[in-house]
């Protein structure tokens, strides 16, 4: 049975996302040290822990409220490029959900598209530039395609997670054109983009949250 996309679902996602940043932060930092400045995992860990703490103090009662709250904390606590990019993506996605106490899988797709637009606008990157968008764009497409072909939420999120993972892996042969990795020119080729990797982790947290709920 597919779970209901209510505030509790998004809070369970936040817990899963925070846990995965704690667990995988060192790997993200390792990826970032190859082509960036070796702090992506550290920053994401700090941001998601701050978001979890803030939300625990005053749990929002709508899906939009959770995403806006997490986004604001990331903007306030992370710094670097990832703070504004992840923070604005989640904040705008949350705003697009309004104050409904639960949302449909289709509304979630629109929210994810809003997040993609926010990242493109703010960062000025396009798919293929070796950035987080290379995981986001195929992931949202896969999610939408799954819904269109009649899949339920759990199945669509699983497709989204698989596509994000493939998108992140597909950044390895790319030459970076945005962000700090772009300074390396051709030397950025052969490394997986840390931002695309953390996106894949966050979407996988959605898929696992839905699956965990569905299995219960």
């Amino acid at each position, binding site marked *: 049975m597919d779970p209901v996309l209510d505030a509790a679902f998004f809070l369970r996602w936040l817990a899963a996302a925070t846990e995965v940043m704690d667990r995988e932060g060192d790997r993200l*930092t390792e990826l970032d*040290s*190859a*082509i*960036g*400045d*070796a*702090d992506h995992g*550290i*920053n994401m860990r*700090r941001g998601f822990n701050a978001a979890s703490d803030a939300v625990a103090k005053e749990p929002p009662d709508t899906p939009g409220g959770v995403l806006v709250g997490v986004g604001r904390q990331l*903007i*306030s*606590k*992370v*710094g*670097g*490029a*990832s*703070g*504004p*990019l992840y923070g604005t993506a989640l904040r705008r996605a949350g705003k697009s959900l309004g104050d409904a106490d639960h949302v449909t899988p289709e509304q979630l797709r629109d929210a994810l598209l809003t997040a993609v637009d926010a990242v493109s606008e*703010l*960062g000025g990157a396009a798919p293929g530039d070796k950035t987080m968008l290379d995981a986001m764009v195929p992931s949202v497409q896969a999610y939408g395609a799954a819904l269109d072909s009649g899949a339920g939420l759990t199945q669509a999120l699983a497709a989204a997670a698989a596509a994000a993972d493939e998108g992140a892996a597909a950044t390895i042969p790319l*030459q*970076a*054109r*945005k*962000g*700090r990795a*772009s*300074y*390396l*020119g051709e*030397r950025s080729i052969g490394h997986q983009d840390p931002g695309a990797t953390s996106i894949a982790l966050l979407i996988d947290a959605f898929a696992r949250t839905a699956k965990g709920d569905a299995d219960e």
Partner: protein
Amino acid sequence: MKMLINGPDTVVADALRGLADAHPELAVDTEKRVVVRRDAPVAGKVGLVSGGGTGHEPLHSGFVGHGMLDAACPGEVFTSPVPDQMAAATAAVSAGAGVVHIVKNYTGDVLNFKMAAELVEDDGVEVEQVLVDDDVAVTDSLYTAGRRGTGATLFVEKITGALAQEGAPLAQVAAVGRKVNESSRTFGVALTAVTTPAKGSPTFDLPSDELELGIGIHGEPGRERRKMMTAREIAEFSLDAILDDLPPGGPVLALVNGMGGTPLLELYLFNAEVHRILGERGVQVARTLVGNYVTSLDMAGASITLCRADDELVRLWDAPVNTPALRWGM
């Protein structure tokens, strides 16, 4: 790697406490993470705010004081500060004449300062941004995040600071900052990789007989790696890159900057090569500054920054300044 720290998580806060202890003339808020001239806001004066990741000391906090910055916002090590810090610093220095944000061109710094400017503009503070992007090692600007802001940041902060101290209006202060940036070019080399407190080990592997050419200031590798060169060869390689790109003109201000792990003896030796080569190529040096000013933690290496300076820029460079790291004329 051994470090003089208590633990990686408290490095920035601990260092800010030490800065406050050493410099009672600065108001250091370790909670909000802002460093402000104690006499700010100075009546009628345009406020100057800069900031960026820590690990580049004395940039930026060491340049807060009379004739230079009014406030700095130190971020985590090598990580842009957050908009809240920048907004707090801007509010603290705003005397009604507007505030200039001096921003090094990195995706994170640019985004966070942009969000901060929106926050304070909602409160009626007029903000002009001066972007610093002087690093000629980044060649393909169309397909990158653009040139990095490095050594020229010191020139921009000193010269805009001097003009603001004289009471010039916002547009004029921002314009001189942009002029200094457009007139400046930098090239840097690394002899060793950098070790951040959080990671505890070097961020890239650099064999002991090789160097990285065209590095930035965040431990990111450069564009090219070669077998170790002499100071003379490094100076020639760096100045070739700079002079190829520097706008033509008269005398220059020269900054021979250490990355943090290279002794001053070597920097002066390097400076001698820089002066010799510039002399051979007919470039007159109006002023020279040698030392560790725009650093990258413990990285060994150096950068050269040249800024074409007319009489007005030289005058503003010579104007009195009183900050922890630059102090003359008063």
